[in-house]
């Protein structure tokens, strides 16, 4: 705990007013409340959430230095799962150890859990189907949802900087998954293949050069 707290208090000699020191103390309650607020007010998850987390944790409460935050973000991005929960876990762990990470991630999850639970209780699939007005509204919404997923296909394709050598990968992956062919339509297969492929492209040239170096 002591070692983890050190970096947080690195500049305490120049920030010596009571107010600032109090701001830097991350009590479990403050940690929970901060992440609860982030979970309750950011729509869309992911990157929208990250910028708010940074503003609260780094700029507002000065719990973590910007560099340390970027390091945690890089770790959170390199691991699977929900990015906002990963970063909450990492921040909570850095500030208050394992119990801090439990508190921070519960805070992030709880608002959406409670909201969706309330919706699931009152807006059941049967109700969407049987209520004339609600069913009409959702009939209009469904094609738009498809459009909202097509848009990130194009943005992520641009960001991936696909070339002629790599553009076949998403095409094959999308085709195989959307066909219903059992094992070869399992998305997990392509995640594993992509990770293995990326690793081998990096690793094989390295063993070659290290062999040449030995000669």
């Amino acid at each position, binding site marked *: 705990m002591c070692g983890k707290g050190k970096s947080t208090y690195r500049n305490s000699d120049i920030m010596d007013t009571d107010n600032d020191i109090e701001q830097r103390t991350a009590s479990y309650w403050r940690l929970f409340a901060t992440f609860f607020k982030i979970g309750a007010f950011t*729509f869309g998850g992911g990157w929208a959430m990250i910028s708010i987390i940074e503003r609260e944790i780094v700029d507002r409460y000065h719990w973590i230095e910007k560099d340390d935050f970027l390091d945690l973000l890089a770790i959170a991005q390199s691991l699977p799962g929900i990015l906002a929960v990963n970063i909450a*876990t990492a921040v909570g762990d850095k500030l208050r150890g394992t119990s801090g990470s439990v508190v921070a991630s519960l805070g992030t999850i709880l608002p*959406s859990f409670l909201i*969706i639970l309330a919706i699931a209780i009152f807006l*059941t699939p049967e109700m969407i189907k049987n209520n004339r007005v609600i069913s009409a509204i959702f009939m209009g919404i469904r094609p738009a949802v498809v*459009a909202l997923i097509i848009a990130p296909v194009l943005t992520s394709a641009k960001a991936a900087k696909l070339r002629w050598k790599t553009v076949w990968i998403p095409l094959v992956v999308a085709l195989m998954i959307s066909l219903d062919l059992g094992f070869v339509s399992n998305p997990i297969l392509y995640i594993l293949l992509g990770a293995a492929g990326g*690793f081998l492209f990096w690793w094989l040239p390295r063993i070659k050069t290290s062999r040449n170096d030995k000669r």
Partner: protein
Amino acid sequence: MNIYLKLIWAYLKIGIFGFGGGYAMLSLVEKAVVEPGWISETTFTDIVAISQMTPGPIGINSATYIGYVAPGAVDPALASTGWGLLGSVLCTLAVTVPSFLLVLYASHFIRRHRESGSIKAIFNGLRPVVVGLIASAAIMLMNAANFNPNGIDSQLWINIGICAAAFCLAYFPIKYKEKKIRIHPILIIIMAGTAGYLLYGL
């Protein structure tokens, strides 16, 4: 196998292999919960819409909603608030626990391998796959249940029109006073819902 164990197993897999953000996760979710028949294709699409309109990550939202409705859909005896609540707690925990443990116990490992460049190489390999994953989610949702539920040609064309219009609003920024503005997904869903009400509900 018990439906709750099946749900936990499905969401553990989604938590472990969920690379590339919420949209890429959707194809995993769809394969895991729509194909076994736990929820219908339209319910899945509705959950995505609800997730867009409520705060929080789409992975959590879908786990909570599907965990609530799936037990009752499989076994009518489990169609109660209590059994639904149990399902949503279990699914939400299952999707978050793997990465929670990885962040706590694998951060050191990741930090060490980031320097060597191997992590970056793995993500270079994953990036084109993620594009394919999102595309597959979109393709799987382009189905009759979403576009032509009643088998009426005119409805199909209206829905294709709604989809095309929504895509243009989501993808192309609007220029306003020299500023580029992107329309928020919530607004697009509200507009599509209004269109749905006016076209099909009156």
